[in-house]
């Protein structure tokens, strides 16, 4: 099984450690992982701003770089959702696209659905609040949605539960958007921040120490608010927790 | 082209070639072990109440529960408590002073506390809304589980008016505070007889 690792462009530049943890987890599980150097951006910021032409170019690039792998794994729910939900408009019928669409996974879902590790040998004695980032949540279906009449489940929780000492904290709004929203975070700056503050407050009031999730972009937005307002809470990419036991 | 032709032509032009078939609408749905209990609970949740009459007459029930009602009207034959003929005039405005209207309902719906009211004997449909209080008489045991069964019994082969009434008139338009008695009846009791 050859895995192509996709690191979102902003994570490559700003979050090398969280990115490296993703790689470490996969390699630690004995998987054959390759990071193709020519990769850049999946095109999501362009697509979400309506720039279809630009997004299409980057989608095509992504396909050409990654179609040769058995699986493509990325530490990002929204980039994976871009591939699965939105690439069809640009790539439908193109050679290798159907494989790409069905074999691109977000890290947690890849571990949960495909690899199914028994034990992660991680200790994490903290009160954790899960941020169900919208695209991972509602497009990739990483957890049951509060809107739907369905049996509760959470792939993130199912994995994190393997960490020793971890304590999950219940929120009042389990899957409300944090307001990052890609370019929304600047085009609707006031709204984005208002939403982010409310999300952080929900975690704070519930007694959360660490907010975690599968989208570093949402966490970066909330961390930006936390740092500006000097709040006693921290965000951590889920991979950083899961990689904690790897020496 | 007139408006009708323009609209229809535009629709015809724009609908897709491959069309969605009509789905099966008789979907599997809930059935209640105790329809009476469910009906009462559902009605209570929307500010109404349901009572089953045991021995006493409707007249006795009205005398006991509506002592202040001065003007009482009904579409039900043989009641002695009524003192106004709801069908007397052709214009309904004379019903504005009705304190209590006693009307017939065909059946209740357990899932939502609604009663189907479609009474060809009643000349003025506004009676159900203009009366200050409403008492709906429903045959004992006339209950269905859900709206699926309800609509099996509802027919409009001929012209007419019918309504599902679920509790009293209400509003929450001021700061989401539930207020019973908006424009219509301030209470709507369902009496199983």
């Amino acid at each position: 099984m050859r895995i192509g690792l996709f690191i979102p462009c902003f994570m490559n530049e700003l979050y090398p450690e969280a990115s490296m943890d993703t790689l470490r987890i996969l390699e630690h599980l004995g998987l054959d992982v390759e990071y193709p150097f020519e990769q850049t951006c999946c095109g999501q910021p362009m697509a979400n701003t309506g720039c279809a032409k630009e997004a299409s170019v980057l989608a095509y690039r992504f396909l050409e770089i990654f179609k040769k792998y058995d699986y493509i794994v990325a530490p990002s729910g929204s980039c994976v959702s871009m591939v699965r939900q939105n690439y069809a408009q640009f790539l439908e019928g193109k050679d290798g696209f159907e494989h790409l669409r069905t074999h691109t996974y977000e890290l947690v879902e890849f571990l949960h659905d495909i690899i199914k590790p028994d034990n992660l040998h991680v200790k994490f004695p903290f009160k954790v609040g899960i941020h169900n980032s919208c695209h991972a949540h509602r497009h990739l279906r990483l957890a049951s949605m509060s809107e739907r009449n369905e049996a509760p489940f959470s792939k993130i929780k199912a994995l994190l539960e393997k960490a020793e000492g971890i304590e999950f904290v219940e929120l009042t709004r389990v899957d409300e958007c944090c307001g990052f929203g890609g370019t929304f975070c600047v085009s609707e700056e006031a709204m984005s921040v208002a939403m982010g503050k409310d999300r952080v407050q929900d975690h704070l009031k519930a007694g959360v120490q660490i907010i975690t999730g599968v989208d570093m972009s949402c966490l970066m937005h909330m961390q930006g608010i936390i740092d500006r307002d000097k709040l006693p809470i921290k965000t951590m990419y889920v991979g950083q927790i899961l990689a904690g036991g790897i020496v | 082209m007139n408006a009708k032709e323009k609209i229809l032509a535009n629709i015809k032009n724009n609908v897709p070639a491959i069309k969605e078939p009509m789905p099966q609408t008789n979907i599997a749905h809930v059935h209640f072990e105790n329809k009476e209990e469910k009906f009462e609970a559902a009605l209570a949740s929307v500010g109404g109440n349901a009572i089953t009459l045991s021995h006493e007459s409707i007249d006795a029930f009205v005398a006991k529960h509506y002592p202040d009602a001065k003007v009482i009207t009904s579409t039900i034959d043989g009641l002695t408590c009524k003192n106004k003929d709801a069908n007397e005039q052709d214009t309904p405005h004379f019903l504005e002073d009705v304190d209590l209207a006693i009307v017939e309902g065909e059946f209740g719906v357990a899932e939502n506390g609604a009663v189907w009211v479609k009474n060809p004997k009643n000349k003025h449909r506004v009676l159900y809304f203009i009366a200050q209080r409403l008492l709906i008489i429903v045959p004992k045991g006339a209950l269905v589980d859900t709206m699926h069964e309800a609509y099996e019994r509802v027919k409009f082969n001929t012209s007419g008016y019918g309504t599902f009434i679920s509790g009293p008139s209400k509003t929450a338009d001021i700061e989401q505070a539930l207020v019973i008695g908006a424009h219509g009846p301030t209470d709507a009791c369902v009496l199983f007889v």
Partner: protein
Amino acid sequence: MSQGHPELAEKFIANDERMHWHDKALWFVRAKRDNASKGVAEWEDLRDCAAKIKMHTIDHLDSYLLEFEKNALAKGIHIHWAYDAQEHNEIVLKLLQEKKVQKLVKSKSMLTEECHLNPYLEAAGIEVVDTDLGERIVQFRKEPPSHIVLPAIHLKKEDVGTTFEEFLHTQKGNSDPTYLTRAARVHLREKFLNADAAMTGVNFGIAETGGFVVCTNEGNADLGAGLPKLHIASMGIEKIIPKLSDLAIFTRLLARSATGQPVTSYTSHYHAPVVGGELHVIIVDNGRSDIIKDKDFRQSLQCIRCGACINTCPVYRRSGGYSYGYTIPGPIGSTLGANRNISLYKTLPFACSLCGSCSNVCPVKIDLDQQLYKHRQTVVAQNLLGFKKHTILKVATWVMKHPKILDFSGKMARAIVPKLPRSIVYSKANLWGKQRELPPFPKQSFKEAYQAKKGDRK
């Protein structure tokens, strides 16, 4: 629209206390909806079924409209067709003038809001009274509804109290909702009894029977339509459903989605005029048949106007109905507004974080977030995004096509930005940094670290 959604939202958010009050009020409605929907085991099947009925109906809309007309005429209901808002308003006025109507009572109809009927009739000297309590409140205040189901949700009870003091002479300072509702009851009873004609909207038009259904909690539609000799109902072409029995599906979904009630207090079926009266239905297009042709947006015609998408929308809850500048706010309003006039409503497709909650509460499963995503492409295609934004994204795309340039830019940024004074990094141009810190810049990119690591191994 002089100001777009971001600016109007910013103003709404500036009043933090009121913004959070609004958010909580709507969240409360959403929570009631969740509770009600979870009480119905077959909820998701109902949604599937409702969506398919609506899709089927729209795909066959011409024949269903004709069937509706035929059956309505057979029952003595008059049918009119209006291609646009102007024609609709003219038909209404003509009917009213024929009957010498001076006073008209109306129950809630977003369609007549869309057609701006009230000012049109008022200009012709007709008194128009909106009888839904929330609508009457905003009518007194000369405001449009800020929500399609809860027209006065933006007002606190004290605001309503002040308004009623002015118009209904209620006690000064009394803002008790029951007291105020009773005052409106007395006031509106008089309006109902003196009306010469009534107008209602239509929740569902039934092709099979030629009748229609109006749902209210207050009973204002029935009280209004049951008294005068003339009842005019305005119906958008998309309100048609094929069969009477289809109402089982829709009535189970509508109120639960809207307010969390198991059903509205009144679900009234009109298949005849009142004794000695006339019943008219105006079938209105006003741009709807154009939407059918676009498969990306056709589903928006499935809407049954429950308002669930509005209640769940994290943006609407924090920006209020007026921030949209369109008759219908929230996700459904944003897609309908964009369909109507993309240039005028160009900020609405972006008044959305693409969270997708709306599509999942929608009882007829409209892909609302996908529609807004697609509308953004129309904004760009019509050169409405704005030169600056578009250029930034074009340049970014060019950089993303050249990994070496990207790597170099990243390296430079990581080297330079941390050395810059805060006043430069957090200048006005940095919208991110207005209320948020940037993440600390690392020494190395992942790619550099990866190269180093692989190099070590070799």
